[in-house]
């Protein structure tokens, strides 16, 4: 693939988004209007500028990432716009902002390379922790930066900027910082972690002293779960760390211990929290609890079934019957209106992005960059699996956004930066 091919996929994705928006307008009785042109322009500008930034500051990066990302964003955007045109136009603004952050990330890394993350890993950790805990700031105080609780989760911060106030989920950025810190820490302590172990049965277990980071991360996850009632971020953080720890050391005992700690935390949180119990009930028996806990999952499954092979067509189904469709259930909305064809395409695109991310890790010679690429890809993959698996009843629903497809500015910004870092690693490792 060449640069022109990458440009062609961006063009195709922009046309796809604009075409989808037009079909939605047709279905509602409208016509080709400013929305079509605006959508095309925003997609072309956002992904075009990222592509230009890659050509300028990371010219040897893989050309295989931006195309699938643009396509996923386009498919998600069509459904967000279809569910609520107001959210759609907000999402367009967020796409421009997120692209700006990606360009900025690429530009800054061009000056210093990803080594800067390794050097300042402790500052990264500190910043991430502060970001993670920010939503616990009081909602009522006079300071213009406040915490906010929405839909039972305290994961928002509000920044008052005079005429308006901005809402943001800092965890979406903190996620990146934590992966960076983990990769840097593991790259530095890899040898000690790998060599100091005992063999117990089929598992190789680390020395107790080496377990401290694992337990600290576990503790942090539980703090997030309790203080913010954010099941998704909590699982994501811990799973990402355990997988990375295993990737760095090859010590199977970490996987076993990680699994055990997850199980303990899962049982304890089920016993302790109503909202976890409701999620489990909805997961195991959505149709038996159709009127309350199970309603969202049951509607999601009806949406998928009704969509069957080719879907109702954009704007012609009723994904609006699913509560919180634009954020939690965008995958089911795609299933209803674009059908099995749409959901399989989406799964294929995610698989492609994950394969490219892992490929970047495989090809990296530097341990830190290898672990960072793997860690970012794991977090991306686990997040995608958790939310789609939640809709398909493989796992309990966790209410985290589907990367690049769900409505939500913070997630879009965080994931665009994630892709920018992956692209930069890809550039640095291609001699």
């Amino acid at each position: 693939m060449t640069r022109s091919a990458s440009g062609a996929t961006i063009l195709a994705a922009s046309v796809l988004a604009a075409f989808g928006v037009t079909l939605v307008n047709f279905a509602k009785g409208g016509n080709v209007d400013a929305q079509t042109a605006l959508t095309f322009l925003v997609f072309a500008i956002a992904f075009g500028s990222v592509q230009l930034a890659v050509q300028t500051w990371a010219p040897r990066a893989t050309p295989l990432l931006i195309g699938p990302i643009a396509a996923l964003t386009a498919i998600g955007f069509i459904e967000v716009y279809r569910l609520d045109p107001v959210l759609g136009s907000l999402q367009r603004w967020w796409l421009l902002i997120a692209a700006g952050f990606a360009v900025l990330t690429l530009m800054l890394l061009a000056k210093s390379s990803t080594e800067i993350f390794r050097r300042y890993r402790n500052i990264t950790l500190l910043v991430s922790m502060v970001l993670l805990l920010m939503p616990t700031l009081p909602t009522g105080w006079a300071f213009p930066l406040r915490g906010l609780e929405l839909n039972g989760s305290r994961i928002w911060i509000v920044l008052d900027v005079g005429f308006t106030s901005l809402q943001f989920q800092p965890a979406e950025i903190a996620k990146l910082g934590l992966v960076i810190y983990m990769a840097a820490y593991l790259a530095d302590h890899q040898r000690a972690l790998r060599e100091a172990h005992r063999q117990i049965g089929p598992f190789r277990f680390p020395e107790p002293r080496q377990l401290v980071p694992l337990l600290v991360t576990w503790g942090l996850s539980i703090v997030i779960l309790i203080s913010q009632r954010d099941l998704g971020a909590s699982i994501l953080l811990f799973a990402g760390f355990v997988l990375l720890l295993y990737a760095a050391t090859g010590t199977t005992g970490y996987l076993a211990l990680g699994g055990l700690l997850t199980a303990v935390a899962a049982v304890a949180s089920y016993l302790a929290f109503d909202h976890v119990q409701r999620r489990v009930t909805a997961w195991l028996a959505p149709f038996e609890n159709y009127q309350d806990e199970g309603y969202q999952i049951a509607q999601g499954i009806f949406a998928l079934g009704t969509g069957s092979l080719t879907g109702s067509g954009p704007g012609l189904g009723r994904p609006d019957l699913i509560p919180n469709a634009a954020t939690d259930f965008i995958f089911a909305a795609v299933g209803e209106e674009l059908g099995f064809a749409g959901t399989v395409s989406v799964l294929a695109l995610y698989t492609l992005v994950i394969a490219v991310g892992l490929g970047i890790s495989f090809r990296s010679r530097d341990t830190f960059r290898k672990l960072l690429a793997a860690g970012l890809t794991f977090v991306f993959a686990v997040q995608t699996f958790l939310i789609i698996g939640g809709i398909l009843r493989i796992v309990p629903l966790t209410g985290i956004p589907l990367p690049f497809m769900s409505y939500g500015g913070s997630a879009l910004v965080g994931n665009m930066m994630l892709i920018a870092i992956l692209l930069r690693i890809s550039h640095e490792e291609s001699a």
Partner: protein
Amino acid sequence: MNGPVRRLSIALFAGFFVLLGAVTWFQVIHADSLKADPRNPRPALSERGKERGLIVTIDGEVVAQSVEDPEDPRSFARLYPGGEAFAHVVGYNSFIVGDSALENAYAPELRSRRDLTISDLIAVMLGRDLRPQSLEITVDSDLQTAAYQALAGQTGAIVALDPSSGAILAAVSSPSFDPEALLGADAAEVWDALLADPASPLSDRATREIFAPGSSFKTVVTATALDTGDAGPETKFPDPVAFQLPGSTATISNANERVCNDGVSVTLLRAFVRSCNTIFADLSVRLGADDIGITAEAMGFNRDIPFPWFVPHAVFPVDELRNDPAALAQSGIGERDVRATPLHMAMVAASVANGGVTPTPFLVSRIFDADGKTVEQIETAALGRAMAPATASVLGQMMERVVTEGTGRLAAVPGVRVAGKTGTSQGPDGLPNPWFIGFAPVENPTIAIAVLIEGGGSVGDSASGGSVAAPIASELISLWMGVGP
């Protein structure tokens, strides 16, 4: 270090493979059952406001049509110009209370298949017509309207058939309802009120409710007797005041509690014309449940009738009656557990009119596309032979005597040879259910009819088939034959 990452990659891809499997499970394997789940509102919602095909009577009267909604040019409103008279035949298509009758049975043809999906686009490119198709029904609009008016203020049903083809000329149930009232935003309240109405206007008494046929069932018993040769019109039977039920102290007597003829003997013809219970109880026991069952089943009892919707089985319980002559005697006069819809009793009359062959009833004669071109012409094969042609001919003459000199005199139409049989069964509430079944003209029948007035209608307790049902048959036959009153 690539080793562990590779193993984790395999695990991740395995996870995504599971997602692919799950999405296949819901969107391919279980798609149909999820669409059909009553808790899934999507299929009904997607029909809302879409254009549907016409339903037109054989004489060109439109009884269901979609017109553009004046408030929303992309949406269609459904109109039922046939109103209450056609409500049980045409049905309704409501996004709130669902759909019924032909609107339900022919939904795949009547609905637009144009959903703007990729598969529709391909279908249009391949030259398939996705516009809604329309139905032509066999009902004669004048006869249907007159039949409904004839039942005005009464509870009951009328079914008229073309005896040779089985085409339904009229099928009405009273009281009825306004189908358009079930389409509006307040449909749920209208629906609840209709359900709460003790006269149950939503039930289709013509084809979906079964009643004891009473003496009109004697037509079936007589056909059996003539067909087996066990008795002819002139065969003499003893003429008691009451027939002693075998193995019981109970008796069956005639409607007027008197003997049928002279108290000594009576011919089958006279017993039929005067509708004497004593003789038919006796005759039924002599014939046996099996032989009567063969005739009844050939006419459509105890089995599925092919029809746009499910018709409840007409019942003549042969197995239970085989060794129970007392019950058989009661069943022979159409009481006890014998049941039939007015549709079934019209088929009994049609069998006699049609030379002994029972026609299969049908309601939709033609399906045509948006250009008026015929997509399917519907014809039905006869259900089967119920009696020999000679039997039908003799029985037809006996039925004509019922109208000329017997219990069915009020069914007579000047200048037309009408044949028929009355009946007055006992309803579950103790009130009489008067019946009249018949056909005309005898020499070349073009209409077979069954009239049921539930609970005696406006006459109430003292009503009989001859007094309340026969005049309605007379009125409708004269309309059909074009002889003005």
